[in-house]
């Protein structure tokens, strides 16, 4: 049984790391602020979600598992709001440059 749980952890954490790598490559390679944000917000939060999903089988108890999920939810909501705010700032600056 522990082998199955360990396998779940390995699969989840590996997939999460892959999405982190993809998000960082997008951040470094994409040409524009908005496309960089597009790469980052989706890939990063999916990576964090997959890592949390992979760590859930290792959780000591139900409360600890719930705390992991709560951290992921907080990161998800804050990333959504933050990317909206930053994209709005980018668009305002752009319209100030080219009215």
């Amino acid at each position, binding site marked *: 049984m522990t082998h199955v749980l*360990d396998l779940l*952890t*390995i699969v989840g*954490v*590996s997939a*999460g*790391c892959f999405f*982190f*790598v993809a*998000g*960082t490559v997008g*951040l*470094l390679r994409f040409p524009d*602020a908005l496309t*960089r*944000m597009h790469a*980052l*917000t989706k890939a*990063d*939060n999916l*990576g*964090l979600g997959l*890592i*949390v999903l992979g*760590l859930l089988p*290792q*959780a*000591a108890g139900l409360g*600890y598992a719930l*705390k*992991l999920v*709560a*951290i992921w939810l*907080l*990161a998800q909501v*804050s*990333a959504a*709001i*933050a*990317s909206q*705010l*930053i994209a*709005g*700032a*980018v668009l*305002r*600056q752009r319209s*100030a440059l080219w009215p």
Partner: protein
Amino acid sequence: MASFLLTAAGLVLAMAALGLVRIFYGPRDADRMIAVQLIGTCGVAILLLLSAASQATPITDVALILALLAAFLAVAFVRGAAGSSARGQADGDR
């Protein structure tokens, strides 16, 4: 299992370090701010991996605080540096 989790944490840490490259080169403040968001998310992931690897559950509280501060960071950026025109509008409305 602990060594695998530590390796994964090292990989995510390397991704956070690569984000510093964007902070260095990023032509505008918004690009740098996006990279800072990446580092915040990477930090949360690293802390969660470390807490699972070392069985030290209090580290998750640090991850929670980091996620909270990353949210405040973006709001402070938009209110402060980039939102100076928006703040002017708000002052004009008053």
